[in-house]
């Protein structure tokens, strides 16, 4: 699912460039730009499909932000940034003894300020502060036989267990990035950050219509260091 979305976004981005080449700029818009805007797409999974030298299949990258946007002053370098990532996954299995359906919804969003600096003609770097929000919503329904005894006995029914776990966390922290200009409009880069977040988690378990454990809420605290593994393809406009 993530790959399909990525592919679609890249295709849209590429087609935008191809059409942009043919557009004629009106004379009134020929004044010098005050800001640079960047749209970034995380391309790790796509790159892994194309270049996978060591055959690794493990999900080492934990940076959740699939799409990023930033706008920076061309003169001072200061700017605003935002990022969003969403992942939905649904799996189910049924071996005749246990049936399980999982639905996972993960949302990550961030906004922040940053200062961009030009290192050389091709290289730029930046640093800043982000506010982050993360939401996870898990829903699992499992069904097992309610009457299992040694030997073959008549089948009498199932126990259906419905588990819902939701967690929300907020926080923030410093981040830094570096980008390389492949062309005038396309840049490739990576970023590193340390986000400290606090939040709560609630879990409700219902067995055959009866809630057997009341919602519980626990304070959760996380310090997450994102190493510069995520690769972003940025479009400048």
């Amino acid at each position, binding site marked *: 699912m993530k790959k399909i979305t990525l592919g679609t976004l890249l*295709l849209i981005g590429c087609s935008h460039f191809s059409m942009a080449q043919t557009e004629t700029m009106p004379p009134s818009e020929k004044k010098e730009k005050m800001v640079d805007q960047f749209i970034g797409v995380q391309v790790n999974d796509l790159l892994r499909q194309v270049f996978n030298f*060591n055959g690794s299949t*493990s*999900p*080492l990258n934990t940076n959740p932000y699939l799409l990023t946007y930033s706008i920076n002053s061309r003169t001072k370098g200061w700017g605003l940034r935002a990022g969003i990532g969403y992942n939905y996954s649904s799996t189910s299995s049924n071996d005749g003894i246990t049936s399980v359906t999982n639905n996972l919804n993960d949302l990550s969003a961030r906004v922040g300020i940053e200062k961009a600096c030009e290192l050389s003609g091709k290289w730029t770097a930046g640093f800043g502060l982000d506010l982050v929000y993360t939401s996870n919503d898990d829903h699992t329904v499992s069904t097992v036989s309610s009457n*299992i005894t040694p030997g073959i006995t008549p089948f009498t029914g199932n126990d259906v267990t419905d588990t819902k776990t939701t967690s929300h966390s907020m926080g923030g922290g410093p981040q830094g990035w570096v980008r390389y200009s492949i062309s005038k409009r396309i840049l490739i880069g990576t970023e590193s950050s340390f986000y400290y977040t606090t939040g709560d988690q609630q879990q409700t378990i219902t067995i055959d219509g009866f809630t057997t454990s009341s919602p519980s809420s626990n304070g959760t605290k996380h310090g997450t260091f994102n190493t510069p593994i995520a690769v972003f393809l940025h479009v400048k406009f």
Partner: protein
Amino acid sequence: MHVKKSIAILMILSLVLVVYSCKKNNDKLNGTVYLDLPATPYNYAGTAFMAPPQVNQKATLGRVLFYDTHLSLNNAISCGSCHKQAEGFADNVALSVGYEGRLTKRNSKSISNITGDELDFRSIDTGFLPLFWDGREDALMGLVSRPITNHVEMGVSDFSVLPAKLSGLSYYSSLFSSAYGDPSITTDRISECVAIFLASIQSHSTRFDAFLQGFNPGTGQSSSTVYSPQELQGYNLFTTKYHCENCHHIVSNSYTTIDFKDIGLDKNYTDMGRGTITGNPADNGKFKVPSLRNVALTAPYMHDGRYKTLGEVIDHYSKNIQPSTNLDIQLRDSTTGHAMSMNIADNEKDAIIAFLNTFTDYQLVTDPKFSNPFKVKN
């Protein structure tokens, strides 16, 4: 215009794929589920030294517990969900799926011969060998509760609530009675029975075991003729030219190792491994050297399941060892100290893989005494 049309088609196709992927599978259980246990328990003890009383009844109960999804918080998964008999009691995915569909942090290790190559029940409550990838436990009874209480794996945050839950299941009363003389369920009894079952999962019926029977330590040769020339070449490459035997003690110590090694998977560690347990920076990036028993069945490989095939594992040693901080000295060039490249030739790679394939125990993966006792009849 043409581009816009293409994008529209692509978007519609994506939407169709999303809708198709969201389609619910049938979650009804339509068959008769029953517990298929023999009237006389299987023999799990063999000729083991100091087998506990009622060992076969306890192992039988351990087998039921091992495969019972009621041991997870929401009855979704069992120990056997991630340690599959057909996969040499490992999992066939890089990271296993927990009770809520979340992925575990590390690859599920094989648990056959978990306490070594000899059946020894003393290891149940006494530390013998480091367990897990990072050696966080060294006694089997301690190991049992770890995945059950893990918030991603089986989700039972309080192990002490499990006896009350299991007491509601009719089949446990007779099983605990025959193992202990009374039907009461305790956490210690649960741990002991699962631990006995785990210890009993022993694999010895491989072609390599037959080869070793004719082995002469003095000459380093075997009189056995079970190996093809290619497998014999693989054996020699493994034990002499590339010194794999130095860490995977398949000949000298029956596959058993207690070592933790950094084999240069990543230059910068993404998982500190043993270092997270000891807090010693010199242990960062080190993981327990896995047993190679049934290695052909236990793919994918490494602590994070990054390599899908044995060929990819050999390619790592051949040309992809990274210069990590704690890289094992045996994987460094003896003169420069840099990460070495073994440059294993293609025919050598084939021979080593042929040799590794002789570690497969087909009897283990079909043995009914280790199989899932919960059966379904449609």
